[in-house]
């Protein structure tokens, strides 16, 4: 490796010193070149393509030896303009966009947006019970799958590859359930203004119960593998420390806030979707470090399983109940059905609009192409996503499209704590600290 090969910045282009491009397998030549200079200060650009940065996150670290003196984040590599795009689609189509933001917790993105739209429509109390229970069910399953990925990738980043493989193995079981219920593993667009898109398919409750039973066997394995593991504890304990005052100032929520011992969980403090009817505990830890956050995630999966069980129980008694508001001006006109050529509008509905009722056809056409109008105003209904407070600021000007939809994503906010958590520590601990925040770059950059 020579400095001349770098086409981005030749040595003469920077006022900060020499530039080295590290590609791996070239450590000897790097140390030789660095060894000639007396300056210990090195600025390392880590990412945006790096397996340990949790997606396309770029870190700019100033090192002195192995100690980090300054840490900065560079984000925006996954910015897709989802918020702007939503302004050009109908209110229902907006769900299809926002579900793709934080791709590990799609149901939470959908839920906060839909709750905001429902508040503006003033139909919060009209959403059927079954739809609310199904939302809670899907969100809690999603919390499990998201926490599993957090633990899996966090383990991988410190070299615990078994944690990763078993984490992704269990997550796939949750995604199978999602596929059964919504038709898709990710990006479901299933929670819609007024309810959910579809009723539960036959046999779903049995699958859910089997999954819960299996997870109750598998979750203790994580505890046995990690909780008292000396290497695991050695890497996580005391790393990425952030106390309550720091969390409040920097706006951190979710497991990071709860690891300081403060039991702030929107499901309990400001319930939505009927969370007040479920029996579960808010999990806290008192160490305010990465290890505490890991334990909180593990414990929260148990609590989510408890909620999923209660949902399954309630859903068993709600067979045949509606999953969409009764207001035909808002509810999607047709139910989907499986035909010989795949999923589509049910044949009964097609027969009705094409052969029986001109008004039904007009209604279907108007609602599908034009969509419904939402009264002018603004709403913000946050939900407790696996990463913290996720909220959609939804503004309507009375039209058929969102005038503005802004998502307050917890990953975006929590990532600001990178500097505070890692400056003064070792460079290897930066990775652990960021993994304990569990940022999802799709949500950060939107």
């Amino acid at each position, binding site marked *: 490796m020579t400095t001349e090969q770098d086409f981005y910045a030749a040595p003469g282009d920077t006022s900060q010193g020499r530039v080295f491009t590290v590609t791996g397998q070239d450590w000897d030549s790097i140390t030789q070149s660095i060894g000639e200079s007396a300056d210990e200060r090195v600025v390392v650009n880590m990412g945006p393509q790096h397996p340990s940065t949790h997606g396309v996150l770029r870190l700019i670290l100033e090192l002195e030896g192995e100690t980090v003196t300054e840490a900065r984040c560079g*984000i*925006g590599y996954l*910015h897709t*303009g989802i*918020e*702007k*795009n939503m*302004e*050009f*689609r109908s209110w229902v189509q907006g769900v299809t966009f926002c579900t793709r933001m934080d791709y590990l917790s799609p149901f939470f993105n959908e839920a906060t947006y839909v709750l905001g739209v429902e*508040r*503006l429509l*003033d139909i919060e109390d009209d959403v059927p019970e079954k739809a609310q229970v199904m939302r809670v069910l899907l969100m809690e399953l999603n919390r499990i799958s998201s926490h599993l990925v957090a633990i899996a990738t966090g383990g991988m980043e410190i070299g615990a590859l078994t944690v990763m493989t078993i984490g992704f193995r269990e997550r796939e079981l949750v995604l199978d359930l999602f596929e059964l219920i919504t038709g898709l593993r990710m990006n479901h667009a299933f929670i819609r203004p007024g309810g959910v898109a579809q009723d539960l398919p036959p046999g779903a409750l049995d699958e859910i119960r089997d999954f819960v039973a299996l997870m109750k066997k598998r979750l203790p394995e994580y505890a046995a593998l990690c909780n008292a593991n000396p290497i695991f504890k050695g890497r996580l304990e005391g790393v990425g420390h952030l106390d309550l005052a720091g969390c*409040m*100032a*920097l*706006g*951190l929520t979710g497991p990071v806030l709860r690891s300081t011992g403060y039991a*702030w969980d929107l499901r309990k*403090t*400001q319930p939505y979707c009927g969370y007040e009817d479920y029996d579960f505990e808010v999990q806290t830890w008192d160490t305010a470090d990465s290890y505490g956050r890991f334990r909180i995630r593990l414990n929260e999966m148990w609590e989510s399983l408890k909620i999923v069980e209660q949902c399954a129980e309630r859903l068993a008694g709600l067979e045949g109940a509606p999953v969409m508001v009764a207001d035909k001006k808002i509810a999607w006109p047709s139910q989907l059905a499986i035909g010989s050529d795949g999923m589509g509008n049910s044949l009964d509905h097609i027969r009705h609009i094409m052969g029986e009722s001109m008004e039904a056809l007009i209604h279907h056409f108007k609602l599908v*192409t*034009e*969509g419904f109008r939402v009264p*002018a*105003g*603004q*709403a*913000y209904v*946050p939900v407790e996503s696996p990463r913290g*407070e996720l*909220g959609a*600021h939804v*503004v309507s*000007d*009375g*039209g*058929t*499209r969102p*005038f*503005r939809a*802004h998502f*307050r994503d917890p990953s*975006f*906010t929590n*990532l*600001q704590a990178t500097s505070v958590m890692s400056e003064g520590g070792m460079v290897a601990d930066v990775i652990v600290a960021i993994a304990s925040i569990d940022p999802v770059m799709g949500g950060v*950059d*939107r």
Partner: protein
Amino acid sequence: MSDDTTDDKTDANESARPVEERNLEKAKAETGAGSGVAQPAPEQSPENVPAPTGEVRAVGARHGMFGVSGTGDTSGYGGLVSATVFPAPSQKPYGGWFDEVAGALEARLEATELTSAIESVVVHRGEITFHVRREDLPFVAQMLRDDEALRFEFCSGVSGVHYPEDTGRELHAVYHLTSMTHNRRIRLEVTAPDSDPHLPSLVSIYPTLDWHERETYDMFGLIFDGHPALTRVLMPDDWPGHPQRKDYPLGGIPVEYKGGSIPPPDQRRSYN
């Protein structure tokens, strides 16, 4: 309103009682002996309380019946014009704990002779919005955070909204504040004209706003004076324009499929 001062004295139980009951009591207190009211006040039973009024501003207009133009519609409905009006400012009492917060805030502002810092208060769909004059924003935010009765110690961030037809107040910045102490949520709204897109930065009060203000600057061109390093955060540093503004096109190219050509989303026929 003449009952501003009574709001401070409301106790915790007050919010649990129905609004109508409190209205009645306030009305009784106003008409009571020794209060100095010369002529009898009109009956203030819940049925007689006038509907909330306030100055409404049109922030845009919608033309035609279906939002479609250029269709050769000869029905005459295409000539319809309807104003886009956001919920009007509310009158007291706002109901529930809203009055406690508004009263406490007002009392503190009066003590510092900044009574005009709050331009209006909108209560809509169970959420309260304080429209704050932009030069007083840091003062109001500081008070909201630190005052014992308010304690909005958590800020969820700032969200920009661009109203190109709201002349003189085109750019809005919306802050969502949470009081974890009292478990309450309020919204602050501040405006700036396109010709002078400056707002005071709140990073010194809520450090979490660092990236949020950078994002709002990036997307709307709102300049937060006093921000430690106001640079773009999502778009590349050399990007021209501010993408979330309404005058910034969505972009896109026509897509051809099986002989047909589908225009990009912002050029398709729409019904807004």
